[in-house]
């Protein structure tokens, strides 16, 4: 038998299979059609990116305080700068900004605590976020208690209002969604029918008609002497809308749990609520989180619709600022800024949801 006793030293990889040139050949120029596509793509990129950078950075004006400081060649970020605090706080009185800032800081730390996997006591943070935080936020933002001056809701606006609408809609929709999802899977025919009708109704109509309904019809439904704040009306509409979508996400999570789990728990003599609370929900919730984050992203984008019923969320306040006669003609800057803010929020949330999906994938999928 031939046996080579000498160890052959490591050889470098054949030329032309590694390195940037090989990568280019493999991924961009493998074949005439692909090369054509690459060149076409480069051209499109050039057409899009170069003027954008030119407009947004090179020719842009950054400092100043009136439209005269803008050369109008590139973007006029002076406009966004001058209106920045309005875009964030709406018409909230500037000497009370600290109150909104505290709420922002608490909100950010709750989110950070929940997102970073290493931090302990997640359960208590969730309880705090769902029960205590809304009360604290209301007291701080609305005032009227502890010598804080009242700030009526029609002065709330900007990013603050956007975040508030989305979070309240979400927190309010969660319990309703759970009840609806359980009802839709119930054995009781009338309960099931009610839940199906409720869910399909809210999912079948556009949010804008719901907001119209909340702002026009809700006052008709309630006793004459009871008048509801416009913000509350929008919140009721958003919450009901969101709860239907939430119910479907939760139902999806519940369906993914094998029936044997429920039957095993029943065999141990557990009651319905014990089976749901201790066996089904903890497993299902894990699988629902990505779906819940996705519906939250939709809700976050959909909150812009409240401007149609006269609330000034981030888009609403940008739109209002654009019609200011001192700053006419800066719509592009305003929209780009608002789009950027929304994009940052939505993109990071969708990335987080993808990350969760990978992390929570503990083998329930068939």
């Amino acid at each position, binding site marked *: 038998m031939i046996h080579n006793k000498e160890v052959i030293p490591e050889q470098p990889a054949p030329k032309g299979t590694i390195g940037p040139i090989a990568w280019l050949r493999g991924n961009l120029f493998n074949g005439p059609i*692909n090369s054509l596509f690459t060149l076409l*793509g480069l051209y499109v990129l050039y057409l899009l990116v170069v003027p954008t950078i030119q407009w947004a950075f090179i020719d842009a004006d950054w400092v100043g305080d009136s439209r005269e400081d803008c050369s109008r060649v590139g973007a006029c970020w002076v406009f966004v700068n001058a209106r920045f605090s309005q875009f964030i706080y709406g018409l909230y009185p500037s000497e009370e900004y600290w109150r909104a800032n505290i709420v922002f800081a608490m909100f950010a730390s709750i989110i950070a605590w929940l997102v970073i996997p290493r931090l302990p006591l997640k359960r208590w943070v969730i309880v705090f976020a769902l029960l205590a935080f809304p009360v604290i936020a209301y007291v701080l933002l609305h005032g009227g208690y502890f010598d804080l001056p009242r700030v009526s809701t029609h002065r709330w606006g900007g990013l603050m209002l956007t975040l508030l609408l989305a979070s309240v809609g979400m927190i309010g929709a969660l319990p309703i969604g759970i009840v609806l999802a359980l009802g839709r899977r119930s054995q009781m025919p009338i309960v099931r029918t009610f839940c199906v009708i409720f869910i399909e109704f809210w999912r079948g*109509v556009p949010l804008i008609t719901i907001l119209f309904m909340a702002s026009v019809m809700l006052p008709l439904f309630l*006793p004459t002497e009871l008048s509801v704040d416009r913000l509350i009306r929008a919140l009721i509409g958003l919450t009901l809308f969101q709860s239907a979508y939430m119910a479907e996400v939760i139902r999806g999570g519940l369906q993914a749990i094998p029936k044997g789990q429920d039957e095993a728990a029943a065999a141990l003599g557990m009651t319905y609520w014990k089976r749901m609370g201790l066996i089904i929900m903890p497993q299902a919730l894990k699988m629902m989180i990505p779906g819940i984050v996705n519906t939250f992203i939709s809700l976050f984008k959909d909150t*812009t619709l409240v*401007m149609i019923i006269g609330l000034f969320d981030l*888009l609403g306040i940008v*739109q209002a600022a654009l019609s200011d006669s001192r700053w006419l003609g800066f719509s592009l800057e305003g929209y780009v800024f608002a789009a950027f803010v*929304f994009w940052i929020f939505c993109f990071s949330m969708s990335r987080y949801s993808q990350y969760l999906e990978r992390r929570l994938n503990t083998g329930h999928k068939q």
Partner: protein
Amino acid sequence: MSVRPNARPVGQKPPFWRDRAKRALIFQILLVAAVAAFMIYIIGNTQANLNARGITTGFGFLNNTAGFGIGQTLIEYSSQSSYGRTFIIGLLNTLLVGGLGVLAASIIGFIVGIARLSPNWLIARLANAYIETFRNIPLLLQIFFWYFAVLRSLPSARESMAFGEAIFLNVRGLYLPEPLFESGFGLIPATFVVAIVASIALVMWNKRRHEATGKRLPVFWISLVLILGLPLLILVATGVPVTWEMPELRGFNFAGGITIIPEFLALWLALSIYTASFIAEIVRSGIQAIPHGQTEAAQALSLPRKLVLRLVIIPQAMRVIIPPLTSQYLNLIKNSSLATAIGYPDLVSVFAGTTLNQTGQAIEVIAMTMAVYLIISLLVSMFMNWFNARVALVER
């Protein structure tokens, strides 16, 4: 065997609150009663409120004269028409932008979704950038962008952008030449229909023959020639009975031709581009959901690459793609109600907007508007159930 001290003697029924069936019955009766009480409360309040405001209920207002103009009408309408007519106009405008939006979003979405899977690194990145940009920006913001930042800052009619001598784009909209059909043109759509029917018959015959004898005709090309060639032949034979009316600048505005209002353009662009980013993701995940073994197995049977795609990959991918795709179509139609923010005369803008404000018949108007969207949703979900039942895997 130990006996629990409080165990029931054999044969005695449990108390009714321990009996599952009775408990369910009682709970449901209570639920119905609660819902009924809630409805009675709301209806009572509504009636009191309506009486206090002096609004009469009923659908009689639909016959009253509307008295306002609408910027885009697909059927005849004047300010003398009734409120009922405004409902039809709004509905048609909604369906128009919805239908064209579905078409454009599908085309863009499929192209971007396939580009996302391209082996070309740059093309895949560009498609990804498109998806991540447009689906993470609120639709309303995109509508505003196209309307206020792009279309509203176009030049005036006198300095319009011209594409050839036929198409003009300015702040008032897009102007296209309008085909004027002369007598004898009716023959062409008729031939078209005949060609389609003939092609369907051919495809069915070919399939039966293929299954029986293994012989096949290139039906795709034959049908293409039939459907496109036959009407074209007739068109030439009848001496092209079409003239084009060109838009012309008269005074401060264009006259003649077809005018597409900027509200429609903005809404259509935004809806298509936004929804396409979701469709692209659906297409990508649908194609990726097919295990690679399917391709390999088909290749092992020495199917050519074209047939692998057509007979193995695409039919299976469609099963994954179509359900979320229809729900995106539904979303697009529902989202077209954002028209009201820029004043495109869709159902919500015309009917739930102007008509509601003029008549004050909030309940009837909102109920009719919601009913339209609910019926569309219902039809689409019925189609979905039918489709799912048709393509469902038959498992042993």
